[in-house]
């Protein structure tokens, strides 16, 4: 009889998360010629950084984890939060919740770099751009930014770049959202921008500024006519950015019609849960002449080789991965999944539905205002859409009465209260609020007969005249059946992780387990306002504290900030903490940032945003930092050296032996070491970055810790810091304006960034435990080396370590076969689509090669299928090189092959249709069909079209 110990199922999740079975692992080790995983690790990871038994916490089963999460979510008190401040509760349509937000076909997709296999989410993003363009009345919009605060900061730097003004002064209206002001101040300071906060109606005309930021409606709900302000500003040579509420824009005159050059905002209230602050999709729209300067991704319309309409990411050369320190911004991951929820909300409701929702919100408030005024309450607003502020002798008392009834209001000092009505507010809520505020029972009848026209909320001159969402796409999917099918059709066009391995180097596309994903849409985690009183969010506090603790153990650092919304933001935050540290020691003039030439583009882009001077350090032929060049550059810049940014393992996937020495050289000169943690995947459980040199690192929770890629966001990019940097971690918004302490200002709008997706990483760490996480790292390294070994007979493997081994990813050199056949790395990538694969990372870090990262989640069968595909493709290139297939007509050059292309009446190609579509000879029932052929990228960038094409160009039935 087995012992009680046999009942223990606490580590059952490990074998669910890890793809290869123990038998598979033994087989892979045998293929590589190793006795054990430990032997492989000892040869891959340098002795001087490898640690045994680094992580000492246990694991729990999926059921146990879900139970623990239930308990934590129950400690978050469920309230109706009318706090406003940019966050408003909303109804996520159930059809969108189930078929998109909670659907792995949508959330496990990667950023749509491979456009031919991403037409679904590209269309949804194009719809998002159209929504923003219509609501703001601007000719151009991007496909999401991280939050309203950083979008406003990006608007500021955009205006500085493109404006003619020589001024270094930027005006911010005092009635902007306070967290927006805080984030803008943080962003402005390193760049030497002088921010002037004041009243736009009286102060702005006296100032010489390069730009101004206004809020519409303002934080207290007032709707001002800024037409004259805009004219005056333009005459003086300044540019205008307006932060606007998209729901208000349904009823209000849009900023594009009264002088805005840029409009930013958040689409959270279009069906995206509050989530204790995120994730939400922010937007930016701008004038035509700034289209090449807009940060973030832009979706454009082009066509494929057969002339069919096709969508793609346009103008990518402005972005960090190409322009590096000259990029428009450091932004990489955005908020695609949430942008798609918001765009589907608009597709589902359509213009009339949105108008009804906006009118209802406004009417609710009109009724409330009229009741309050009749009862003698002094409501300050002369205008409003959904927000008012009223005077009261006891703000705290009103607030307490409201809380007792389940409502959070916004206390403003001792004698004023604000409140914002939202889509979920009911008539019963209004009646209750009246009672709570006037503190006596109201009479029912006047509510029916009350004189609403006496409290006209929207100024007549600012009532919206122009139509919105006129494109047919927003007017045809209004029944649930039609909507469900539309989302399904788009999902089907995309190749996401729920269908095949996505072996993108450095992206770590591992399993996003169902148990990890389920809790994020529970009401206890999703219906929480980011500025709710802290005593209502003890569940989140507990989860956040535990997650921070675990991440500190995993990285070997002392302090963590979970605020940054993406790796790029983490980098930026990390560099700012270093800057603040030097300043605290009286060494402000340290501003040189050393960056290896092999670094990811976000590194130099982030350095520039922190006002550091980028100095490139050479890498040697192995892709390692060249130590003698490092010593030279350090000596040259010694007194001014602020930091070095290293990626470890390197961007080439190698555990550089000299990492300790690199850190020592920089420390000796008084600089700090920032470590880019994109490759943390190769270190969890087997080494501790906080112990071998770096002072700060960022993590990508959407890589190493299972937050899904969402098609291009959300992301979470925390920074972990050593003890001496802890005091400088970002402060939370709303505390900046009354802050003491040395922390850098907030770098995101919400205190804990995208808090509602933190349970995903918490669950992953909890269910894997220390030994499970370690095994995951080991298997990911094993799988990458297995692939390298299997492909080494056909391709060179670049940049192996001293033992001929790679870390968690390998670089396959396809240049020989490409040059023999006169094809490009693009041709190979597109041909892989016919084999049912998303290409590995192309041409980075080395041009015309592939970087492959399988992760620990891929089953051996899928890894073998990928290797087989690469080998077969190598064989196909032989046929081109030998002349059997002509160079201009072969399966690679014609890839990807759509079903439509294959069903042509005549087929004159030198290969069969079967070879085109089923290249490994098997007519697989799970065949993925690319929906468009090779897309014309040049045409798409030459004539940029970012709005929805005419409905005729969409395929019938999607």
């Amino acid at each position: 009889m087995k012992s009680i110990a046999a009942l223990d199922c606490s580590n059952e999740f490990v074998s669910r998360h890890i793809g290869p079975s123990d038998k598979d692992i033994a087989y892979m080790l045998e293929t590589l010629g190793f006795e054990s995983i430990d032997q492989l690790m000892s040869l891959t990871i340098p002795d001087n950084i490898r640690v045994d038994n680094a992580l000492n916490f246990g694991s729990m089963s999926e059921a146990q984890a879900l139970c623990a999460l239930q308990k934590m979510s129950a400690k978050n008190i469920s309230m109706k939060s009318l706090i406003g401040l940019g966050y408003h509760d909303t109804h996520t349509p159930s059809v969108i919740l189930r078929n998109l937000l909670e659907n792995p076909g949508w959330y496990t997709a990667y950023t749509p770099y491979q456009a031919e296999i991403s037409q679904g989410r590209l269309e949804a993003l194009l719809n998002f751009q159209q929504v923003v363009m219509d609501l703001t009345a601007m000719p151009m919009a991007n496909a999401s930014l991280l939050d309203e605060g950083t979008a406003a900061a990006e608007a500021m730097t955009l205006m500085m770049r493109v404006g003619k003004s020589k001024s270094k002064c930027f005006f911010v209206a005092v009635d902007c959202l306070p967290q927006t002001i805080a984030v803008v101040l943080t962003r402005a300071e390193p760049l030497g921008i002088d921010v002037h906060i004041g009243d736009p109606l009286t102060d702005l005309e006296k100032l010489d500024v390069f730009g101004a930021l206004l809020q519409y409606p303002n934080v207290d709900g007032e709707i001002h006519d800024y037409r004259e302000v805009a004219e005056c500003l333009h005459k003086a040579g300044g540019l205008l950015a307006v932060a606007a509420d998209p729901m208000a824009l349904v009823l209000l005159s849009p900023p594009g019609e009264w002088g805005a050059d840029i409009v930013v905002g958040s689409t959270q209230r279009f069906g995206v849960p509050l989530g204790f602050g995120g994730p939400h999709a922010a937007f930016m729209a701008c004038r035509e002449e700034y289209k090449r300067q807009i940060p973030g991704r832009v979706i454009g319309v082009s066509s494929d080789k057969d002339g069919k309409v096709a969508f793609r990411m346009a103008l990518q050369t402005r972005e960090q991965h190409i322009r590096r320190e000259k990029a428009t911004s450091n932004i990489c991951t955005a908020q695609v999944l949430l942008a798609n929820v918001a765009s589907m909300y608009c597709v589902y409701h359509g213009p009339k539905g949105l108008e009804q929702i906006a009118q209802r919100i406004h009417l609710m408030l009109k009724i409330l205002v009229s009741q309050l005024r009749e009862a003698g309450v002094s409501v300050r607003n002369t205008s409003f859409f959904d927000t008012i502020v009223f005077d009261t002798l006891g703000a705290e008392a009103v607030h307490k009465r409201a809380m007792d009834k389940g409502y959070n209001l916004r206390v403003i000092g001792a004698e004023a209260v604000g409140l914002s009505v939202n889509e979920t507010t009911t008539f019963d809520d209004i009646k209750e609020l009246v009672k709570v505020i006037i503190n006596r029972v109201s009479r029912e009848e006047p509510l029916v007969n009350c004189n609403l026209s006496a409290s006209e909320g929207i100024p007549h001159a600012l009532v919206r005249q122009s139509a919105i969402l006129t494109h047919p796409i927003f007017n045809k999917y209004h029944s649930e059946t039609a909507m469900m099918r539309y989302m399904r059709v788009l999902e089907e066009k995309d190749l996401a992780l729920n269908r095949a391995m996505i072996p993108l180097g450095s992206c770590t596309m591992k399993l996003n387990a169902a148990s990890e994903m389920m809790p994020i849409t529970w009401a206890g985690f999703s219906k929480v306002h980011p500025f709710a009183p802290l005593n209502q969010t003890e569940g989140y506090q507990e989860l956040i504290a535990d997650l921070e603790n675990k991440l500190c153990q995993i990285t070997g650092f002392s302090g963590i900030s979970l605020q940054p919304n993406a790796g790029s933001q983490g980098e930026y935050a990390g560099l700012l903490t270093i800057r603040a540290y030097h300043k605290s020691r009286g060494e402000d003039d340290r501003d040189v940032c050393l960056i290896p030439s092999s670094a990811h583009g976000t590194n130099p882009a982030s350095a520039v945003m922190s006002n550091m001077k980028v100095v490139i350090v050479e890498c040697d032929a192995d892709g390692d930092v060249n130590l003698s060049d490092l010593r030279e550059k350090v000596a040259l810049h010694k007194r001014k050296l602020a930091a070095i940014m290293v990626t470890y393992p390197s961007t080439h996937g190698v555990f550089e032996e000299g990492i300790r020495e690199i850190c020592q050289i920089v420390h000796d000169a008084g600089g700090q070491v920032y470590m880019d943690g994109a490759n943390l995947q190769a270190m969890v459980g087997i080494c501790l970055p906080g112990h071998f040199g770096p002072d700060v690192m960022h993590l990508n929770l959407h890589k190493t810790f299972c937050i899904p890629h969402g098609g291009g966001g959300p992301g979470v990019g925390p920074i972990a810091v050593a003890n001496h940097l802890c005091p400088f971690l970002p402060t939370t918004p709303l505390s900046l304006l009354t802050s003491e302490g040395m922390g850098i200002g907030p770098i995101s709008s919400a205190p804990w960034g995208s808090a509602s997706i933190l349970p995903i990483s918490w669950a992953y760490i909890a269910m894997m435990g220390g030994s499970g996480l370690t095994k995951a790292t080991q298997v990911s390294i094993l799988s990458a080396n297995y692939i390298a070994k299997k492909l080494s007979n056909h391709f060179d493997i670049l940049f192996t370590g001293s033992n001929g081994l790679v870390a968690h990813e390998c670089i396959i050199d396809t240049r020989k076969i490409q040059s023999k056949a006169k094809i490009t790395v693009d041709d190979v990538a597109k041909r892989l689509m016919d084999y049912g694969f998303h290409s590995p990372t192309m041409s980075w870090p080395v041009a015309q090669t592939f970087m492959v990262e399988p992760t620990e989640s891929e089953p051996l069968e899928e890894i073998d299928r990928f290797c087989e595909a690469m080998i077969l493709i190598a064989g196909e290139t032989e046929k081109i090189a030998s002349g059997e297939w002509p160079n201009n007509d072969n399966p690679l050059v014609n890839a990807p092959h759509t079903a439509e292309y294959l069903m042509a009446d005549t087929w004159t190609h030198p290969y069969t249709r079967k070879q085109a579509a089923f290249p490994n000879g098997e007519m697989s029932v799970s065949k993925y069909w690319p929906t468009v052929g090779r897309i014309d990228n040049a045409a798409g960038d030459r004539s940029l079209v970012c709005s929805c094409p005419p409905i005729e160009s969409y395929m019938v039935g999607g």
Partner: protein
Amino acid sequence: MSIKYSKDHEWLVIDGNIGTVGISNHAQEELGDIVFVELPQVGDIVGQGDEICVIESVKAASEVLAPCSGRVIEINEVLDSNPQVINQSAEEEGWFYRLEISDFASLSELMDSEAYETFLLAGEE
């Protein structure tokens, strides 16, 4: 009217004191399909080595540096709507701008066709 090249792959053709500037055929090949170029404005004063514009292709963006100093007197408006002319005829129809040259001495730093060819071959090793 001989053509001169800079080591950043720009070319200059001199006619009296007027120079015409563009990027070399090698440069357009390296860049791939060109989608956008923002030219300087007539009247701009440029110094040798100044960044005069950024040229964008689908896969790359590159600074174009002025091969010599002077004042811009004419720009090739065709490139605004048809940047692909640069790919088709980089050293003739794809010219960027003309300028009044101000510093003839600095032209000695530029290479003639043969020297440029040699320079390109050396770079490939």
